């Protein structure tokens, strides 16, 4: 846990230092600040790099750790220019904001177990909720929780039947870790033997996590399976903007709709969706 935090801290420091160097190298370049769901942080960064190559005068700064809700709030507050959210806007969000789906990435069950095998979607709830659940080789299943308000938590409950009750039961177990961010979630899952957690293909792929997919109803959460409909469980990625749109933002939105942008998305585990 400490190690994970140190890694996160290092990442943050390095990222911050890189951004500082970039700003220092080109203090006149236009800056687009963004943040949001952690599952697409790396994808955002890669989109920013690709966008900056195309438009060198515009630089994308990704603020990590905001999460979907924090990102939406930051956009509303004008702290960032746009946010990438894992959920649509809610009633509690600033109604002046606008959200649109820009991509869809498979959302599956990942484990540190080298061969977690398959699980039926109706058994997912028991897999999370049962304290005696084991993998095929008999090793115990060790789930990792997310905050209740986290978009992934909400998504899991929505995707798998009876999982809400199982998660609520799971939350009563004090030994079960709760990961605040997507990165924390991936790190804890990697470090926990026999772990089980929900995760997007975009994050697992872009962050190169040492985790293995659990096929659901015999189908692996690949981009192809999601695209052809074999795998039904996906997470929509929203672009949240305020009414104070800037030209740079508009160009970036245009970039996302471009083949170049969609290519970057697809290469990073997400199916691009035309705005």
């Amino acid at each position, binding site marked *: 846990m400490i190690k994970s935090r140190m890694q*996160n801290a290092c990442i943050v420091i390095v990222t911050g230092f890189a951004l500082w160097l970039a700003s220092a190298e080109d203090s006149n370049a236009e800056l687009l600040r963004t943040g949001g769901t952690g599952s697409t942080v790396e994808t955002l960064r890669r989109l920013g790099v690709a966008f900056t190559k195309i438009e060198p005068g515009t630089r994308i700064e990704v603020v990590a750790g905001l999460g979907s*809700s924090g990102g939406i709030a*930051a956009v509303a507050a004008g702290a960032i220019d746009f946010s990438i959210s894992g959920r649509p806007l809610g009633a509690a969000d600033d109604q002046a904001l606008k959200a649109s789906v820009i991509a869809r990435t498979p959302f599956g069950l990942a484990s540190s177990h080298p061969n977690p095998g398959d699980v039926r979607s109706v058994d997912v709830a028991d897999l999370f909720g049962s304290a005696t659940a084991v993998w095929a080789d008999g090793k115990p299943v060790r789930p990792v929780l997310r905050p209740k308000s986290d978009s992934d938590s909400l998504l899991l409950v929505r995707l798998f039947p009876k999982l809400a009750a199982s998660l609520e039961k799971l939350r009563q177990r004090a030994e079960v870790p709760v990961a605040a961010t997507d990165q924390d979630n991936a790190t804890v899952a990697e470090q926990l033997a026999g772990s089980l957690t929900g995760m997007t293909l975009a994050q697992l792929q872009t962050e190169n996590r040492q985790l293995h997919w659990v096929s659901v109803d015999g189908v692996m959460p690949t981009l192809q399976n999601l695209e052809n409909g074999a795998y039904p469980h996906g997470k929509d990625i929203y672009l949240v903007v305020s009414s104070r749109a800037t030209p740079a933002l508009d160009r970036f939105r245009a970039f996302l709709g471009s083949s170049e942008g969609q290519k970057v998305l697809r290469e990073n585990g997400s199916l691009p969706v035309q705005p």
Partner: protein
Amino acid sequence: MIESLQKKISSDRALLRKMVQSSAIVVAALVALALPLGYALITYHYEVADAQQKARLSATQVARYIFQHPNLWQFHSERLAETIGTNDSDATRNIQRRIVSANGKIVSARGAISARFTMVQRAPIVVGNEVIAQLELEVPVDLLLQRIGFTALISACLGLLAYFAFRILPLYALDKTLGDIGRLQSSIVRQNDELTNQNRRLLEQEETLRQRSDQLAGAQRLGKMGDWSYRLGDAELWWSPEVYRLLGYDPARFNVSRETVMSVYIGDGARRVIETQSDVMRTGSVRDVDVKVRRGDGSICDVVVTSQVMTDDAGRTIGFLGTIQDITARKVAEEQLEKLAYYDPLTGLANRALFQRELNDSLTRCGRTGAQAALLLLDLDRFKEVNDSLGHAAGDELLTKVSYLISRVVDSSHFLCRLGGDEFAIIMPEYRDIAEVRELAGAVIAAVAGSILLDRGEANIGTSIGIALIPQHGSNVSDLQRNADLALYRAKEEGRGRFSFFETGMSEAVQHKIALARDLRRAVDDNSGLFVHYQPQVDLATDRVTGFEALMRWTHPAFGNVPPSEFIPIAESSQLICDLGLWIMREAAQQAKAWLDAGEPARAVSVNVSAAQIWNTDITADVARILDEIGLPPHLLCLELTESMLADHTEARFRKVLVALKELGVTLALDDFGTDYSSLGYLTQLPFDKLKIDRLFVDGITEAARARKLLEGIIALGRGLGMTIVAEGAEKPEEVEILRTFGCDMVQGYVFARPTGATAALAVAWKFEGKEPGLRELPPASGTSLPGTPQLSAVA
């Protein structure tokens, strides 16, 4: 005192009640206020501390998160909310955590709170030594207030309870205690009264005890008794005052140590007392011992010391106690009793009891040593006559003198005793020659023979002795006595004034007489075998039978007719003669009355009266009773008395009896006149009506002129004195004619009729009157035995 105590108790009670009430209020207030206040303070402090701790913990967690995510951390509301609530379930705790930025804006909040009253605790969120925000923890205090309120309510109740408990219970206890004290006081008063009554009763009992002690002391003085005690191991005994008084010692001077007390006993008394007390100690019984003691004045007295063990409560012997009683008087009485038991009070000689013991000892001694002894039984001759004539006093005087005379001729080795009456005995403890026995017997006879001068006259008696040799004539006391008695009987039969040794064969004749005496007694008692014959007395002037002499006859069931000459002496020797005399008097009177009732002319019946009847019975009363019972006119009963009964008796008494009889109206006749101690003085001094001339003077008058002269003189004498002359023993008509010539009034003799039964006798009377026998049937007197054949035998 009791009332002042009650007032004090009442005032103390009021003060105690105030104190208790004040204490109860204080305690109730403490309970009602201090408890909820303390509970509120403690609980509030705990809640504040808990909230502070939680707030600080959450602030630290938030600070770490912000430190890791510094960029736009204010927008990490969801994750911050998750961060500040990771340690507990705020929703369930109804706690709200808030992150408030420096400008007061709530960055993140977790948990909802629904409470009227809440408490907020804050903790700074410090990142890089800069307080960037505050973490507020708001917790509800409604429950706390409710608990405090509930606690206050409970405390109020407890306070109330405490108040009542501290007020009521002590007061209850106080009241109860005071009530108990009151009851105790009443009980004390009652007990005091009871004690007073008990004290009064004890005083009364003490007075009673003192009186009884005095009475006991008085009784001890009367009984000449005192008590004593001795505790084992003590140096001294304890004597009651009466013991000192009895023994004549001064309590102030006499030290009652064991040694001094033992020295009081005389002879072996001390040893016997110690032995008795040892026995008492061993057996636990009560024992007494008679001892002699020396009194303080040096005199000797007899005491009985009674001892018993003295025990403690556990029953262990701790000493002795007992009594000492002066029995001197009793001892003297016992000695006198012994004398009475073994000695004749009249003569001072040994009595029959001692005689038998001595005789038994002699018998034993002879059997053991082979010695020879002799038993001499003495019977005074004519003592009875002396006794009858001169009275018992003279008899006693004679016995005393005879005892003295005999004692003079026996030596100290001889045992002399009086067996009773005129019987004496001498035991000759040892003799070598039978001549010694003869010599002793002769000496005794000689000593008693001759005249013995008495206060009232002179007595001429003698003694007869029967001798039985020991052991030849008896192997036991009774045999020896019986054989000596037989020898005595023989000696008397042989003429008195003799001694006779027992010989074999004596017993049969004497036994026969003894049997006759026994059977005669039975005949009198059963009124069987005895009957009366009547001999007519013919009046020479009228030639008619004017009277009969009643003569006793006895038909023995085994021996047949026993002549009066045989059974009369037997009767006289055993005093049976009195009963016989009374019997024939009653029979004759009844017969005379029967004749009278049958219409016969009045004819007198004469009965003989013995001297024993005069001297040993109340003949006057007997005659009066018979006459009264039968209803016979007194003059028809004639009592015949002989001269001999006057020989040894005082004339005065004899005259007194005769006068008394005469006053009854009976006829008195002097029988056998001229045969014995004839005294012409009697004829003039005694109130005789008739003079019966013995046959001795009648017999031979037809042949001897001197006899006729004597008879004529006697008749003339009697007639001269106015007495009726009755001649006995006339057997010839010539004798009758001579008597008629001499002026004799009546004749009784065989010439007219022998004694015969009543019917035959009456027939004789009728014959004289010219009546034919059998013309009338006359009843015999009731109870009179009438033999079928009249026995015509004269009285001896």
